[in-house]
């Protein structure tokens, strides 16, 4: 029993060590040549444009349900007109970054783990090395660059459509005038909130893509292994997004507020 626990701890530490080693290789890959520009552009398309639909839907419906729920609560204080403040603060500071990161983890993190995992088990990664290509530079660096830069863009889009969705509900269901709603949206946001909403997605994007890549590059055991890797990437990525979000929020509050 104790032996098994020790083995699990060892395996966990090994994963952390390998993850950190991969991060070191990624940093070296970003700051030195060769940089595979065509692969980076392809990943911008796959991660950014490819995730747009799911982010638009998530942002819109989150904003709408937020307006509905906030309206009910604010009614208790006769402050229904303040719905814009609640929606903007919640979307920009927290829901936009976290939900976008979670949706991208589900779509992109799993895809990266499955793609790299199947390349591992079919020897394509070994073939890359045999052909003189560093798989980290060719496969991981483009995904990390694209993920780190596209998640913030997707987050801003999610924030925007979320507030538009909330505007629609405010007008049609809560009967709050559009001008009142948008005045409250602006009034409810402070510069620190905007910074927090912009800084967090960079870190969350980096975390979710690097976890997907790490899990994919460590895949073993044929098609079953690819299935396990995909599941692990989503589970580990989602938990990491929530944990890192909490830690980054705590640090940013201490630094900015």
């Amino acid at each position, binding site marked *: 029993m104790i032996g098994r626990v020790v083995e699990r701890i060892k395996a966990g530490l090994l994963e952390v060590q390998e993850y950190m080693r991969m991060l070191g290789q990624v940093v070296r890959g970003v700051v030195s040549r060769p940089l595979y520009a065509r692969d980076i552009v392809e990943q911008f398309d796959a991660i950014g444009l490819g995730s747009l639909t799911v982010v638009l839907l998530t942002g819109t419906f989150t904003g709408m349900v937020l307006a509905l729920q906030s309206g009910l609560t604010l009614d208790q204080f006769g402050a229904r007109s303040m719905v814009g403040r609640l929606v903007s603060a919640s979307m920009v500071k927290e829901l936009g970054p976290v939900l976008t990161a979670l949706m991208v983890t589900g779509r992109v993190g799993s895809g990266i783990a499955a793609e790299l995992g*199947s390349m591992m088990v079919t*020897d*394509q990664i070994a073939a890359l090395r045999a052909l003189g290509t560093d798989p980290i530079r060719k496969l991981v660096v483009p995904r990390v660059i694209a993920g780190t830069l596209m998640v913030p863009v997707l987050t801003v889009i999610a924030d925007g459509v979320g507030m538009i969705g909330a505007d629609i509900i405010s007008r049609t269901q809560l009967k709050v005038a559009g001008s009142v709603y948008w005045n409250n949206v602006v009034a409810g946001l402070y510069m620190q909130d905007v910074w927090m909403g912009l800084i967090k997605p960079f870190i969350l994007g980096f975390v979710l893509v690097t976890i997907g890549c790490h899990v994919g590059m460590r895949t073993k055991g044929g098609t079953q292994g690819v299935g396990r890797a995909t599941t692990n990437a989503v589970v580990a990525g989602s938990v990491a997004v929530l944990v890192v979000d909490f830690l980054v929020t705590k640090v940013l509050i201490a630094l900015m507020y």
Partner: protein
Amino acid sequence: MAGTGTAGAPAALAAPRGTDAGGDAVVFEDVCLAFDEKVILDHVTFTLPRGTMKIILGASGAGKSTILRIILGLLKPDSGRVEVFGQRVDGMSEAQLMAVRAHVGMVFQEGALFDSLSVRENVGYRLFEETRRPIAEVDARVAEVLGYVGLDDFGDRMPSELSGGQRRRVAIARAMTSRPELLLYDEPTTGLDPITALTVDDEAVKLRDLEGVTSIMVTHQLRDAFYIATNRAVRDGQRVRFDPLPDDEPGSTLFLMLKNGRVAFEGSAPELRRTRDPYLRAFLS
């Protein structure tokens, strides 16, 4: 890329094929490797002179493919010495190994073609991605090697559209595009029907006899192994003919048999046929 060398490549690697008759292409000296408790290679020693071929036989899990991966630097041995073209590779970093790999081609089991790239892009991968050669020059070389393996019209197809035998031939074409001095074949005919396997065998024989490529083939397909060891390719005008060697002629191909991670036999095809070792007899029967 043979003979052109790579930036930073060791001088020994830059010698044009066929001119450095003295050196060994590969030296394995007392190499050991174990994964946890399982011993994969147990003091394996052999040499591969330039211009020759070695066929590594053995049961599944005997460590055959591991030898190829160690030569290419994809795996590191626990102990022993591994040299490729006079350069010790067992302690090299990944960056140093890239210079060695520029002179080595490998045909993986099942081909390991890149799913997302066309046949043309697969075959020309190393030249497209890792060199600055003009596209027209790379395309010409790709067309040349695809013609060599009899797949001239397949450049625009995707790997998923190819049969098993075509995939292996594309893998051979990809491995030979950059004119490597050493070719490693990892069970290139496993899972193929005998007729298709023969087309793959012919490519290996042609590369050995007509191009002078040093090679190692890992297989447990005895029919293919003996065909390659006992036939030679001869150019006959525009055509290539395959002639059987006389029964007692050893040829330039030697067999190496692995048993439980150790070398159980090393010799020519006639010597292997004459062996009285019970394990080898059982393997050959």
